C-alpha cells in the first residue's frame, strides 16, 4: 500500500475542519472515545453541534481561541491507500506553520466557499502550494448546498480560480464541487449535483498518481553518516549511509564524489536485511564503493555525467519566519542544505512578492515575518544543489539564526550564480 501526504489549509469558516472530520468519520477513523470527548467539550463550550475542529485543534490555546495555530497530523486509511493529513492554519500570521505542513505534501486541498468565490486567503494558499511545488492541487468548492447546488455558481468560481492559477506554476489542478457538511462529493458521489462528472474527493485522493512525482532521473546521494563498525567481524567495513535524494543507484554504477571529484564504482548497496539491487528515493541505504577514498558527511555521491550545480552562489525564494528580526542584506546565517551545513551571507534582496497579488516590490530593503522574497546568497563552502522545481530534496534549504538557534527561513533554490 502506498502513502499519500496531503495538506489542508483554511480556517473554521471555510469548512476545513468539517471536511477533515467527515473524511475521518466516513472512513471510520474517529474512535469512539475521541468522539465522546469532543462531544462533551462541544457541549461545555456551548456549541449546538459537535465541533469537529476539536479533533485536530489539540492545543489548549487553539481550543480557547477557536483557531488552528500549528499544524496537526492525522492519519487514516482506506483499502487502497494510507493517508497523512497535515492540517495547517489559514491565517497569515501562521504562514510558517502552514509551510511546515506543506513542505512534505504530495497534494494540497484549497477550500473555497462557493458563496464568496476566490478570496485573498484562497489565493495565498494556492500560491504557497505552488511555491512549495506540491505536485497536485485540489480546489474544493465547498458549501454548494448554500448556492442550491448550482452548476453555474461552481463554474464561476472555477473560472475565477483558473484565471489566477495561470500566473502560478501548477501542473495538476482539479476542481470538486462539494458540501462537506452534508457529505456531497466527499466520500460518496453527490446526488444533488448530477451535472458533475468527476470523482468525489476521497476517490480522487485514492487514485491520483504520485509515484512519478519524485525525481528518478538525477542520481543524488547526500552522505549522511559514515558507518565504520571497527569490529573483528567487519574490520574493514566502510559504508556511506544516507537517503537517496534523486535518481536510482545500482551496484556497478560509476559514481563521482563531490567536492573531491574522485570517481569510483558502487560495490554494493547494503541494508540490515541484506544487499539490494537498486536504491531510489526515499530509501535509506548504505553505499559501499570499490575504492577507498576520503568521504564524509555532507559530501554528495552522483553520476559523472549528471552532476548537480556546485558552487557558493545561489539564487532562491525564501519565506522569512522570524518574528524577532527581519531579513536584511549583508545578514549572516547558518544554512542546512541536504546533509551539509555551512554559513551564508545574504548578498542581495531583489524583490518581495506579495502573496495575495503576486506583485513584485523591487529592492524592499528587508523581509519581515511570513514575507516571501527573492535573494542571492553566498556560502562559505560549495553546496551541491539542483533547482527546487527539478528536485525538492536537493533544491530546498533552511536558514538558522546563529544567535537564537531558531529556524528563520525556508528556501527554494531557483538557480546558481549571482
Amino acid at each position: 500500500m502506498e502513502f499519500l501526504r496531503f495538506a489542508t489549509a483554511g480556517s473554521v469558516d471555510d469548512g476545513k475542519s468539517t471536511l477533515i472530520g467527515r473524511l475521518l468519520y466516513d472512513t471510520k477513523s474517529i474512535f469512539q472515545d475521541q468522539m465522546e470527548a469532543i462531544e462533551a467539550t462541544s457541549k461545555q463550550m456551548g456549541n449546538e453541534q459537535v465541533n469537529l475542529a476539536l479533533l485536530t485543534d489539540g492545543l489548549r490555546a487553539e481550543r480557547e481561541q477557536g483557531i488552528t495555530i500549528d499544524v496537526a497530523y492525522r492519519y487514516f486509511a482506506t483499502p487502497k491507500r494510507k493517508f497523512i493529513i497535515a492540517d495547517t492554519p489559514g491565517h497569515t500570521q501562521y504562514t510558517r506553520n502552514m509551510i511546515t505542513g506543506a513542505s512534505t505534501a504530495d497534494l494540497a486541498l484549497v477550500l473555497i466557499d462557493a458563496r464568496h468565490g476566490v478570496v485573498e486567503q484562497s489565493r495565498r494558499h494556492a500560491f504557497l502550494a505552488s511555491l512549495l511545488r506540491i505536485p497536485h492541487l485540489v480546489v474544493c468548492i465547498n458549501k454548494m448546498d448554500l448556492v442550491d447546488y448550482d452548476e453555474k455558481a461552481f463554474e464561476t468560481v472555477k473560472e475565477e480560480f483558473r484565471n489566477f492559477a495561470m500566473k502560478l506554476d501548477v501542473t495538476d489542478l482539479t476542481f470538486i464541487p462539494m458540501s462537506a457538511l452534508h457529505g456531497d462529493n466527499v466520500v460518496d458521489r453527490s446526488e444533488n449535483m448530477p451535472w458533475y462528472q468527476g470523482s468525489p474527493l476521497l476517490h480522487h485522493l485514492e487514485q491520483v498518481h504520485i509515484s512519478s512525482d519524485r525525481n528518478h532521473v538525477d542520481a543524488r546521494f547526500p552522505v549522511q553518516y559514515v558507518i565504520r563498525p571497527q569490529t573483528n567481524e567487519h574490520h574493514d567495513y566502510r559504508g556511506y549511509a544516507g537517503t537517496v535524494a534523486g535518481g536510482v543507484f545500482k551496484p556497478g554504477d560509476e559514481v563521482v564524489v563531490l567536492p573531491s571529484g574522485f570517481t569510483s564504482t558502487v560495490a554494493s548497496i547494503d541494508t540490515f536485511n541484506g544487499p539490494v539491487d537498486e536504491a531510489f528515493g526515499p530509501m535509506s541505504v548504505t553505499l559501499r564503493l570499490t575504492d577507498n577514498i576520503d568521504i564524509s558527511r555532507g559530501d554528495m555521491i552522483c553520476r559523472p555525467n549528471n552532476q548537480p550545480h556546485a558552487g557558493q552562489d545561489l539564487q532562491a525564494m525564501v519565506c522569512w519566519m522570524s518574528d524577532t528580526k527581519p531579513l536584511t542584506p549583508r545578514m549572516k546565517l547558518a544554512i542546512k542544505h541536504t546533509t551539509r551545513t555551512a554559513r551564508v551571507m545574504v548578498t542581495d534582496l531583489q524583490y518581495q512578492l506579495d502573496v495575495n497579488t503576486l506583485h513584485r516590490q523591487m529592492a524592499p530593503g528587508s523581509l519581515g515575518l511570513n514575507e516571501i522574497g527573492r535573494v542571492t546568497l553566498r556560502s562559505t563552502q560549495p553546496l551541491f544543489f539542483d533547482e527546487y522545481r527539478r528536485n525538492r530534496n536537493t533544491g530546498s534549504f533552511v536558514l538558522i539564526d546563529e544567535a537564537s538557534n531558531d529556524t528563520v527561513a525556508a528556501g527554494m533554490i531557483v538557480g546558481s550564480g549571482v
Partner: protein
Amino acid sequence: MTITTYELSHLDQLEAESVHIFREVAAEFERPCLLFSGGKDSIVMLHLAQKAFWPARLPFPLMHVDTGHNFPEVLEYRDRRIEETGARLVVASVQQAIDDGRVAEETGPRASRNRLQTTTLLDAIEEHRFDALFGGARRDEEKARAKERVYSFRDDFGQWDPKNQRPELWNLYNGRLNQGEHIRVFPISNWTELDIWQYIQRENIEIPSVYFAHQRPVFSRDNMWLSESPYVTRSDQEEVATRMVRYRTVGDMSCTGAVESEAQTIEEIIEEVSATRITERGATRADDRVSEAAMEDRKKEGYF
C-alpha cells in the same frame, strides 16, 4: 519489458523516514540516548536503530525510566534484549529519587508514579549530559502529540513550548542547542498503532508476553481492567477476578489497564486492532484521563 514503478510500501516509507532521523541525530549530536521501556513502540525503535547503523553497534546507550512498578515479563525482556544487542543500559530510577527525597510519593488509591517520572528523567538527562533523547511517541496517540515536531526542542528546564515550535521543513531538522538545552526526537511520529503491529509482524520482532491474551487477576476501575499488584490500593468495592486479557500499551502497572482479549498471535492482535473503536490511550491509560489537556500539561513540564 519490465516496468519499474519505484513505489515503496507504506511500511518501507515509514522505516526509511525513521532510519533517516536516527542517522541524522547520531551525526549531529554529541550525546544521544534512546528511551527504552520494553513497550512495543520502544521495541520497534530499537529495531529501527539497529537497522540504521548496521553492521555497527548502536552509537548511543538506552535509558529506562524505571518507576519500580514494572511488569516482571517486561523487565525480563528488557534485560534479554540488552544482552543480545550489546547495548549499554542506563536505568533512571523513580524509587531512587523518592529515597533521595527528590520527589514525594503520591498516596491514596489513585497514587501513581507517572508524574514523578518527569523529575527522574530530567535529573538523568542532566547527570549524563544527554543532548538528544529518542522517544517512541506517535502523533496518532493523542491530540497534543499530533502537534509535536520530530525534533522537539526543550529548554534548560526540559519544558516544551507548543505555541513556539521551530518550523520543520522537508527532512531538514534543526538541532542547534545552547548548553543545558536538549531535544526530544520522535522517529516514529508518523506511525500508527496498526503500522507498529504490521511492522512487528513483517520483521518478526519478539515482544513481551503481556501483549498476548493471558489469564490475569484483575479488577475494574474507570472502565479499565487493572492488574492486581502490590502497587495499587484497592477499595472494598473493587473485586478481583481472573480474566482473559492482554495489554495494548505497557507502562507503569499502577495506571496501565488491560483489555479483554482472546488474541494470542500477532495476526489476531492485528485483527483486533483493526476492528477496535477505542484509541489505545483511551482504553488503557488512567494518566491521560486527568483532564482534556492532561498530556499537553505534562509535556510542557518535560514529560515524554
